[in-house]
């Protein structure tokens, strides 16, 4: 397993939509490198033939048209009332005319 560099931290921060000053970047680089070094112990294990576990109840199938014996848990596609717009916008930092306001993303042209 690779370790992580200062440039790597900057790249990952951008992917995660986070930003750090130089001091924070240095600190995260050091800490993440140490944590990843510890996690490297997983390489002691031979896992080529081991299937991954993403969910502990494999009989729970989430898509329609499920395998025989499996239970699909998709809901019927029925129309139901949704929350009133006011309730949904009540927590919005900048509600605007029934929408979530954000900084302009398209030039006026």
């Amino acid at each position, binding site marked *: *397993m*690779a370790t*992580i560099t200062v440039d*790597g*931290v900057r*790249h*990952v*921060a951008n*992917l*995660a*939509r*986070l*930003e*750090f000053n130089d001091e924070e970047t240095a600190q*995260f680089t050091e*800490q*993440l490198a*140490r*944590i*990843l070094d*510890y*996690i*490297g*112990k*997983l*390489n*002691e*294990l031979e*896992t080529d033939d*081991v*299937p*991954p*576990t*993403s*969910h*502990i*109840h494999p009989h*729970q199938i*989430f898509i329609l048209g499920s395998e025989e014996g499996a*239970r699909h*848990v*998709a*809901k019927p596609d029925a129309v139901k009332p949704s*929350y009133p717009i006011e*309730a*949904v916008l*009540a*927590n*919005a*930092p*900048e509600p605007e005319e029934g929408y*979530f306001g*954000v*900084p*302009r*993303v398209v030039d006026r042209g």
Partner: protein
Amino acid sequence: MPLHELTAHALHEKLKEREITAQELTEAIYERIAEVEPHVKGYLTLTKDIALEQADRADQGFQNGDEMPPLAGIPIAIKDVICTKGVRTTCGSKILDNFVPPYNATVMTKLHEQGVVMVGKTNMDEFAMGSSTENSAYQITHNPWDLDTIPGGSSGGSAAVVSADTAVCSLGSDTGGSIRQPAALCGVVGMKPTYGRVSRYGLVAFASSLDQIGPFTKDVTDCALLLNAICGSDAMDATSVDVPVPDFTQCLINDVDGLKIGVPKEYFTPALDTEIADNVHAAIAVLEELGATVEEVSLPHTEYAIATYYIIAPAEASANLARYDGVRYGYRNENPENLISMYKKTRSKGFGEEVKRRIMLGTFALSAGYQDAYYKKAQKVRTLIKSDFDAAFEKVDVIATPTSPTPAFKIGERTADPLQMYLSDVMTTPASHAGLPGISVPCGLVKSGLPIGLQLLGAPFAEENVLRVAYTFEQNTEYHQQKPEIQTNGVG
């Protein structure tokens, strides 16, 4: 005994016999809060107006002679990661400082059907990421047994308020041990049900394949009552499992004759605190004397559980926490230059350090070129950890271990070293990977006076075995009756 010290089942008898009213009980709890909460600091929000209204409703039912549910009129605290309609829900984060959910979590709907009294919302590590509750953006919660120590985490507030008798019981959430570890450190009962037993609808997501809601209580009987109230499949959570929910009070059987208890050798390493090891061995010996068969089992991949956890949980968290971008709810950084800068400034200022560390770790583990080496590798090791448990449960009914490798540590002791903090979860994360039900019950005190927890684990959906062993242990010991003396005159 003062009202605030009583269990829910004892209080239910008094309410039913009209010896007390829910109003009196609720007032007694808030008097206790006035006395000790300034030192413990377990609550982020108190909801006294709502509580008194709910108590009044319960009293009307009792007065009318209605058949009242076992939790009617019982004061309960809720971890601030569970959505409560109309009541601020912060997740211990500044990014949700002003968030008021427009709906109730399914567990809240179920508790309201019981007629509970909601005392308030409890402190926690930000977004449930931590093992000491020191990662809360708001305050440090103090362990009632020693105010200079941490209560455990991430559900530290929910554990501390039950220990301090400022709530009769509470709900927490457990991703890698966040119910069991603080229960052990605060000397109360805490249980994580099987993954899928309880609906996660309205539980703010941290690591979706691991998160599960569960109770903190003063004894195992109350634990069964709360499980009865909150378990069951839910159309709003596709990962809740549609299996029959038994009446958990039926497994409160004071007898372990014929049950097989496995003791995994990998949990008793030389690194384990010797007082804890001795104490837990003594607890297992009690169960053996009561008729259980005790045998050693092996869970060979135990030592890989933390490394696996700190890939899977941060990876899922990095995806789940992408929603906090300042658009629909919560904090938004003002006067951004553009949309991307708004996202970055909002998230960088709104999240605390540990949350950012985990988002970084998770984003890295899922990023191009690293996903197979980290995330997929961890998922494969998760399979190995789960297979260890599957094999062990072929031979035994319940597995017994310490809940935490150490008693409560000092405030500030591990904050400088994230990895050291992560290792606090070494006893609890393996069962989380396998989705197992697990309980922590008090099993004594170390010489310095801090509580120790005995962890009992069962096969998936075998809560009944876990509760039966826990109940038998409790009925034949007095550890659960030990109470902290909170130093209300100290600095705290």
